[in-house]
């Protein structure tokens, strides 16, 4: 995702310890944490910056994450309805 691009979260890719992929929980500590911070399927995200670290906006929450975490968030582009 480029800086400034907007998208909708589709899924969070499971981490190494896949246990309960069906319900979307217990995938990995990071995935759980992202979920609890509001990065859930359907949430709108905007990429704010990529360097020196990735920062994105999810709803009204600004989150700084490392690359591996950001890569786990699957996003489809968001089309402006207007």
């Amino acid at each position, binding site marked *: 995702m480029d800086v400034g691009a907007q998208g909708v979260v589709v899924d969070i890719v499971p981490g190494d310890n896949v246990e309960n992929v069906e319900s979307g929980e217990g995938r990995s500590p990071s995935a759980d944490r*992202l*979920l*609890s911070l509001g990065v*859930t399927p359907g949430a709108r995200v905007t990429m704010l910056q990529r360097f*020196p*670290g990735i*920062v994105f906006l999810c709803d009204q*929450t600004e*989150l*700084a994450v490392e690359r591996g975490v950001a890569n786990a968030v699957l996003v489809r582009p968001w089309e402006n309805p207007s």
Partner: protein
Amino acid sequence: MSCHIAHEQAAAASRPLTLRSRPLRVALVGQPNVGKSVVFGRLTGRYVTVSNYPGTTVAVTQGRVLVGAEVCDVIDTPGVNTLEGTVSEDERITRDVLETDRADLVVQVADARNLRRALMLTGQIATFGKPTILALNMVDEAFARGIVVDAPALEAELGIPVIEMVAVEGRGMAELRDALARAAVPHVPTAARAGATARAEWAHALTTRVRHVSTISLARIQETLAWATRTPLTGLPILAVVLYALYLFVGVFGAQTLVKLLEDGVFGRGINPASTWLVDRVIPIPIVHDFLVGEYGLVTMGVTYSIAIVLPVVATFFLMFGFLEDSGYIPRLAIFCDRIFRTMGLNGKAVLPMVLGLGCDTMATMTTRILGTPKERLIAILLLALGIPCSAQLATILGILGGISFAALATLFGVVIGQMILVGWLAARVLKGERSEFILELPPIRWPRIGNLLTKTRLRVWWYLGEAVPLFLIGTVLLFVLDRVGALVWLSAAGRPIVTGLLGLPPATAQILVMGFLRRDYGAAGLFQLAHSGQLTGVQAVVALTVMTLFVPCVANFLMMVRERGLRTGLAIIGVITPIAIFTGAGLNYVLRSLGVHF
């Protein structure tokens, strides 16, 4: 069925409350940084640390208030993002409160801008089956961003009171008190209870129904600042300015101007001569004289060190730290530090304890709890003890080396930072365990409230004095006794091969290094006086300060390490640090001398 229970409990909550045999227990629960502490303060008239980053309300605070005719015990819990699954220490504390009868009623404080996240938590709170009220705080900030929540509609959907508030201005507090009697278990559809994803979908759908976002207002000054502090092009210059301001305020104003004023003025010309005169008048016994106002006197050394040398530095540092903390700046630093910290087995989050360590390593050791894994906590504690100078040490370093040359300062910081990276790198490879991935919520940039800032600084300084002054005094007494029985001479003699031989320092530094263990800043203050009286050359000052910085932490810090990690780990950390400090000092001494550096 769950509905039935809900109604019963709702009825229970609104029953005439005089029947209760004990006060109604009201727990404030919510995400970090939503204003819980402010609400608590407004409700109870008491103060809890209010700050702009997670992890400050570590323990549970309680206060008693009268609401109408009802006595309530209000509990402020640590901020939580989730109450299920693998939870952090903070989250477990809050969950315990909800699970037991320590709470009869829950007030969920939420950030009105983040309704979706708030509702995800509401969904979890509902599972505890307690009457709940949703306090939508910060509607002022939400409004400024064009976000409006239809509170009556939300109230109808959830079946609980929803109160819109601006806690900092006290708006909505009366409504909140009135609503206590109407609290009910939130109505969450069974489908939404299936798990995090189902709950998220429910929260998302509900949010879409009751929240209206009009225009996205972007060009606010806060947003611009938030952007500027995290982008390298502007962020690094801003960091430089912040560090320079820190140096000016703490290093120059605190450590020099105020210290001089207090040490030479208040103590040097006022208190010390006066108490000497008084002691000689009232109890003219030589040993009492020495004990109180002699070279290692309780007043002339203990009190003077703690109040005149350490207090100004600590107070100015905590004021500045509080400002950076409340403004939301510190978490933004984590973005810049993440990469370098990762080589040390940590992640950007560790910047919080590291910066706080510049104030007091003991306090910082306690806040390593915010880090994700035991391994990270251990590494952070080790690095804090090894390389992060506390404010008193920092002041000594700046005070002594700043007067010598910039190269001297750069040498010291270069060596110390290099050692930290090396030790961190090794520790990350040697120690077992995992590193957690870096995920950090960045709070909005806010202008700190002066009143809050002052209260917070006052509380921290009090905490510090409560920890430090007794140890200072004990240290002084110990020094006095050691001196009397001749052990000081012996200790200095025993340490001489290392101190004078290996490190090339004057013999008197041996005693200062030993006392530095009692309180790092105590040793620092001693070194300060040695340098002031011109007994140290440039190279000696650099070597002595490097060893002092790397050397074992003070007793308080050691005790805190033991409390957090156990005695064995505490001793192991000391066992690692001591040789590192001495050999680094020796190496530095050797290199500087053979290169003929003079600074």
